[in-house]
């Protein structure tokens, strides 16, 4: 059983949701997601769960946090739920980011709500003494504020970009990364709109940079049974991979992205 302990607006239509759980089937890793039912018990609408990446996780407090944006019916309903509400939640699901980056130079590139899964990742990477540079972009500065605050609690270098206003630069997370990219990192992690990921991937591969991305695919089940989330791959056998089981984290160059 999961219970809402925080559900508050932390940016324009951006909410922080903190849940307390009784127990979890396994320890959540960065890049994994939870699948949350937002409808009332017994109500058949909305029918499907909504997937959200782990923003942060604190095992001592039995607490898992998400940052979500209100974009449609499900997130709107979620944003109205009050503290104390019990939620039906499945997870952690999916394959996490790989985490064998002891002492390495790491770049994190996040666009929009794609920033959410990078925070718990960053926390974990810091524990491995990785040197982090974080590149965050969003349409408007106001969408970055909360993330900026959180990331500035870490030791990473932070760069910000928004389309509306010059921060570190005016532009996208990709522009920002390319502009600031001096030294080739050992590994990059990126999450954001598919078009951005596609561009990041192109630049990375061109520069022989390896890394991982996390993608958002419309999901039916989130547990691998329905094949709604199939991704075309660039691997030799071209066998599809499921974003909910083999993903949502994929290696750069592994799956076909919408450009």
């Amino acid at each position, binding site marked *: 059983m999961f219970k809402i302990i925080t559900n508050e607006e932390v940016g324009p239509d951006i909410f922080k949701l903190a849940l307390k759980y009784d127990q979890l089937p396994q320890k959540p890793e960065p890049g994994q997601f939870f699948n949350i039912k937002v409808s009332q018990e017994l109500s058949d*609408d909305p*029918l*499907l769960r909504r997937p959200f990446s782990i923003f942060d996780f604190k095992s001592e407090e039995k607490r898992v946090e998400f940052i979500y944006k209100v974009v449609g019916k499900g997130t709107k309903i979620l944003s109205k739920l009050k503290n104390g509400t019990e939620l039906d939640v499945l997870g952690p699901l999916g394959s996490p980011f790989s985490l064998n980056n002891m002492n390495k130079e790491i770049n994190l590139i996040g666009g929009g709500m794609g920033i959410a899964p990078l925070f718990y990742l960053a926390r974990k990477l810091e524990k491995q003494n990785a040197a982090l540079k974080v590149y965050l972009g969003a349409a408007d500065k106001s969408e970055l504020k909360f993330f900026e605050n959180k990331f500035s609690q870490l030791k990473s270098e932070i760069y910000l970009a928004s389309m509306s206003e010059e921060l570190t630069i005016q532009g996208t997370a990709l522009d920002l990364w390319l502009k600031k990219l001096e030294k080739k990192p050992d590994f990059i992690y990126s999450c954001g709109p598919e078009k951005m990921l596609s561009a990041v991937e192109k630049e990375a591969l061109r520069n022989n940079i390896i890394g991982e991305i996390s993608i958002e695919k419309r999901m*039916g089940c989130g547990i691998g*049974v*329905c094949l709604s*989330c*199939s991704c075309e791959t660039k691997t030799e056998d*071209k066998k599809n991979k499921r974003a909910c089981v083999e993903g949502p984290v994929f290696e750069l160059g592994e799956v076909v992205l919408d450009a």
Partner: protein
Amino acid sequence: MLNLERRDLDLKVSMKSKNNKSLKLKNPLVTASGTCGNGKELAEFFDINQLGAFTTKGITVKSQSGNKTPRIAETSAGILNSIGLENPGVDSFITDILPETKDYTLPILANISGYSKQDFITLAEKLEGKEELSGIEVNLSCPNIKGGGMVFGTDSEKVFEITKKVREIYSGYIIVKLTPNITNITETALAAEEAGADAAAMINTLSAMKIDIDRQKPLLANTFGGLSGPAVKPVAVKMVYDCYKKLNIPILGLGGVRSGADVIEFMLAGATSVGIGTVNMIEPSAGLRIIKEIEDYMLKHQIQNLSSIIGAAH
């Protein structure tokens, strides 16, 4: 007998056909093809052997990578899917998937789809004699493959022809799965029965679509999809009810089941067994909960043999 307790309850159903074939299930719950993978994934959540039977994801003669994404859309109390029968093809099914099902003790049904009569013949030939299978489900109703299943499924003659061919080849239990996208489903159901089907399954999904109003384009990459989930249940129950009056073979009823009450509703309408599809996508261990709810209903109404309620609403 009064004061029945849980241990006294008998949930067994037997799908006895006119051909003297029978599929015996420990309870009426059958997983619906395409919504439960091939078992492994659900098995992580509970022991799937507690269900009545398992139907595998639809297979075709050749491997298929399915439709482009998005392949899924949510609608009011329902979902649209246009997976497009992504599957490794029947040969790989036989070599890779079937052996994996050996660990299961529940009956396994293979769901087959084709683009031509010849496809169904090939599939039946390849599956004939496979011991892992308790039967096959002939999908004459997939709305997601062009020129495919559903076109056959709306034409009683085609239903008859294909079923007859498959019957000649396949000696095991044959379920013919029918489409609801039709004026009168009792006609195709009767055609299947006459051609030798052991049971009729209904319903597959309703043809439907959703438009993304911001992009001003159909939301699914495939334009159309099949509607399933609670939204369609009242349509499915009526089709089962209508067919029960006309058919002499058992019915596998499905469409929108979410609870034990829904299973009871299908059985009262005339279904001998009941499929659970979309619900598994939302709640992987739904089957277990549903069995418990069926038992609760039997206790409340002091019904010892679940099979006694089949068709009781008529």
